[in-house]
């Protein structure tokens, strides 16, 4: 089974702190994604990566950056956390090419910024 793991299920940080959210997948997927999920707003794409060291902005990249130094790991970075970044963060991965490719999601990290 594909497994996508996220480093923390719950995280509490202070305003202004630098926050790292880590995601690891074990199926050699080329694509990895970071979403945030907020009630009534659904899933919104922050960043995605289709290869090591490659990244593309999603729909809401402001205030976030990402890093992908290894194929299996995709990190989301909040340079200076703010209260409006309190949210559920979901990581996903998928293969690339060859038709239809399912995105596999991790369990999410609920981040609270105080």
């Amino acid at each position, binding site marked *: 089974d594909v497994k996508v793991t996220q480093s923390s299920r719950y995280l509490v940080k202070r305003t202004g702190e630098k926050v790292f959210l880590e995601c690891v997948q074990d199926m050699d997927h080329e694509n990895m*994604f970071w*979403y945030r999920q907020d009630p009534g707003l*659904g899933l919104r794409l922050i960043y995605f990566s289709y290869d090591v060291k490659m990244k593309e902005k999603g729909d809401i990249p402001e205030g976030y950056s990402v890093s992908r130094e290894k194929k299996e790991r995709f990190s989301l970075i909040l340079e200076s956390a703010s209260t409006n970044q309190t949210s559920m963060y979901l990581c*996903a991965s998928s293969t*690339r*090419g060859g038709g*239809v490719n*399912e995105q*596999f*999601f991790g369990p999410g990290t609920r981040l609270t910024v105080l």
Partner: protein
Amino acid sequence: QQQVKQSPQSLIVQKGGISIINCAYENTAFDYFPWYQQFPGKGPALLIAIRPDVSEKKEGRFTISFNKSAKQFSLHIMDSQPGDSATYFCAARVQGGSEKLVFGKGTKLTVNP
């Protein structure tokens, strides 16, 4: 702007009833339409998906109906069960090979016993 509009926001159905969730999109730059199911405390998981050259796809009690000319697609859950209670997201994949998905805002389904 690429958008997928989903309705209703919440839905309550009695056990054995039919649950219907609707989605609409605004442009034709999508080439694949999946539905994801999310239980509390879990990440979303693919439930069923359809390509735009097919008008209907059925998997067990779950059916997607797709109307390309109207730019609409819907999920039908037949004989709804309490275990179907979850949040459902429709999505559309952006053409071009990036595997980027645009999600609807979700529908919280409650099936009463």
